[in-house]
């Protein structure tokens, strides 16, 4: 089945509503959830790599997660202190989940229940190699965000010991 396999979309990045010293943690956490959403989409794609009939009768279509930055202007002045009122390192948020509309390959398999009159079956447009490369990328960025989270946590902890 295709359907929404339950990709949770956490709205809003890490910035707002968090006390200032902890905001770095919120940013790293927003990166963690964004990458987790990417991994969920990838696992749904791989799980449905052979799904020739979804709820609407068409083959499964590959899903991709697009990310967008929250309040990125101050970042261009890297390291510079943000002006008062635009304390704006906001992290990342999920802009949306898109379906890849390209057509999957036609495979000759006359015995297949979804074969057309010539014996061809339209397969999903999921390419396992692409998904695996995407998965590696998502995992690498996830780990980087986890390291940043731990570093900020250690710094906060250290500053309580002064």
């Amino acid at each position, binding site marked *: 089945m295709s359907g929404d396999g339950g990709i949770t979309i956490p709205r809003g*990045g890490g910035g707002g509503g968090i006390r200032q010293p902890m*905001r*770095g943690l919120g940013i790293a956490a927003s990166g963690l959830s964004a990458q987790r959403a990417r991994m969920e989409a990838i696992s749904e794609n791989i799980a449905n790599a052979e799904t020739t009939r979804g709820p609407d009768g068409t083959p499964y279509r590959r899903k991709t997660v697009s990310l967008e*930055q929250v309040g990125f202007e101050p970042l261009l*002045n890297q390291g510079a202190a943000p002006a008062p009122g635009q304390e704006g390192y906001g992290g990342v948020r999920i802009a949306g989940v898109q379906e890849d509309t390209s057509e999957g390959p036609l495979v000759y398999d006359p015995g297949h229940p979804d074969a057309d009159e010539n014996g061809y079956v339209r397969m999903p447009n999921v390419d396992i190699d692409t998904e695996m490369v995407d998965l590696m990328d998502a995992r690498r960025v996830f780990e*980087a*965000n986890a390291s940043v989270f731990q570093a*900020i946590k250690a*710094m906060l902890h250290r500053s309580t010991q*002064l």
Partner: protein
Amino acid sequence: MFTRLVGSDSTVTQLREGLDASSRAVRAIADRVANAGTPEFAQALDKAQATGAPGEGPVDLEKEMVSLADEQLRFETTASLLQKVYQQIRSSVRER
């Protein structure tokens, strides 16, 4: 005399500003790492590069991790120094 121990030009203040700078830098790193791969971020960086403002192409995770380790060490060193200075002040005001 005492104002120089905790005043605005004191070692304590300078070290505290150092801690603030480190945590700001780490927050910027957190934002760059969180945004690794977002298209508008890459565009913004391209634009910044074209105009000569800071920013060097898409996010380089390894580079960010190195700067993170660097900032962590800087923070730890500054915190230790600050702790030492506080210790000195404390022992100098303690009655024998």
